[in-house]
């Protein structure tokens, strides 16, 4: 059973095709990167995986559940974090985590919050309103929210955007450790090529709604005869052909 199986996934709006017939699978425990420029279709793909958008065509199976017919069973086993989706600012960090523990039916709520606070160093922040936190603190709180239900599938949209290098590295280190310890599957959309190289075992390169290339970071570097993934990204974004190795 795949953690994610997307087949012929297509999303058309009145005047544009945001995602155009993409097919991919993600094995359990794998960390997969979704790369592409602005408007490549990453956000729409993630929104379809989360059930926020219904595909025009194609199917999605998450952890064996068909998202068209059984999405709530899948949603209970997955979670999402993005710096672009806020948590209620007036609620304290602890209250926010409590809300999501209830929504995800997490038992022993207070123990789980304490656990997350220790893992992500949130102890001193628990009593503070979410709206008064720094960007780095908000990212850690958003990650804690995404982990309340110990998800088997974690979707992350630019998890280290707007973080300083030190905090970004801490988050990446923590994600690596969490994946190793929990066996969680992670799908990561990012513009940070170093992050993708470090965290992802497979990369899907998207452009204009299609997957234009895929492989391990090493295989992509080899195929494009480049030394870092950023150059591969630019080759694809600017329609440059892969250079023979």
């Amino acid at each position, binding site marked *: 059973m795949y953690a994610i199986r997307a087949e012929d996934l297509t999303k058309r709006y009145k005047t544009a095709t945001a995602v155009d017939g993409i097919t991919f699978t993600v094995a359990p425990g794998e960390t997969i990167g979704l790369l592409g420029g602005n408007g490549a279709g990453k956000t729409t793909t993630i929104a379809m995986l989360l059930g926020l958008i219904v595909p025009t065509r194609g199917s999605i199976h998450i952890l064996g559940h068909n998202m068209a017919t059984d999405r709530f069973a899948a*949603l209970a086993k997955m979670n999402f974090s993005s710096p672009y989706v806020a948590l209620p600012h007036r609620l304290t960090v602890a209250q926010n985590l409590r809300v999501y523990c209830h929504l995800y039916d997490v038992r022993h709520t207070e123990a789980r919050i304490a656990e997350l606070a220790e893992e992500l160093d949130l102890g001193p922040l628990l009593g503070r309103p979410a709206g008064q936190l720094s960007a780095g603190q908000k990212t850690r709180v958003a990650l804690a929210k995404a982990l309340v239900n110990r998800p088997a599938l974690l979707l992350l949209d630019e998890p280290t955007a707007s973080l300083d290098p030190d905090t970004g590295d801490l988050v990446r280190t923590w994600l690596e450790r969490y994946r190793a310890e929990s066996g969680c599957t992670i799908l990561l959309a990012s513009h940070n090529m170093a992050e993708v190289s470090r965290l992802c075992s497979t990369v899907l390169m998207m452009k204009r709604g299609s997957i234009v290339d895929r492989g391990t970071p090493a295989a992509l570097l080899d195929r494009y005869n480049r030394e870092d993934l950023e150059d591969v990204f630019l080759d694809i974004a600017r329609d440059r052909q892969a250079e023979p190795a």
Partner: protein
Amino acid sequence: MTALRRIWGLVYRHLCVYRGSWPRLVDLAYWPVLQMIIWGFTSHFFASRIGGGGAMTVGMLLGGVLLWEMALRSHLGFSVTFMEEIWSRNLGHIFISPLRPLEMLSALTVMSVLRTILGVLPAAVLAWALYKFNLLSVGPVLVLFAVNLMVMGWWIALGCISLILSQGGGAESLVWSMLAGLTPFACVYYPVAIMPHWLQPVALALPAAHVFEGVRAALGQGIIRWDHLAWAAGLNMFWLLAANALFLQQFNAARRNGALMNIGE
């Protein structure tokens, strides 16, 4: 149990907002109390000019004010709680959680009941303290009248939320005025028979008109008009089912056209 826990999660989220903000608590009761003060003195002034039957006029006007506030607060309690999620940009998190749409509506209903009680209770106490008007003198049947008005607030709020899902944040301003716009047809302060014949069917299609006919009969003649209560309940059932179907249709349409991603913008 799991569904109840999810519903409680959303209710708890909104209770936290009120617990930490006294201006929000004051705001709940502000308009009902203000309305009661204005209408209380106005009705007393008219009663002093009318002479005999004045007390009845005061009772009907103040009863109308209090009960109509229940419908208004119920409507606002439901729809504003939903809009709070838009304003805090939290809808995305809500809709990707296992919370079902109908569970979300249940949580909004609970918040609506709590907000209505907190909003109308001070006004009812004020009516008793300042004007010696006791709404409970209608009798236990008052609960049935009040529940019908609250249910009417819910289905109108559901219609407003459907409109927001369909048209985006631009429809938010309608939420504030939607139920107020129905006041002339609710016949809060006058009987349906006063209206022109061609307009009466519009009023009688609203549960509120039946409720207020019933309240006037109870206050004025001391009789319980079960026929009006039955009409109010039947109409509420019909409109609630229709509004629920509209909400689910618009929710699914919003998932198809991607509106849930950027609602409120």
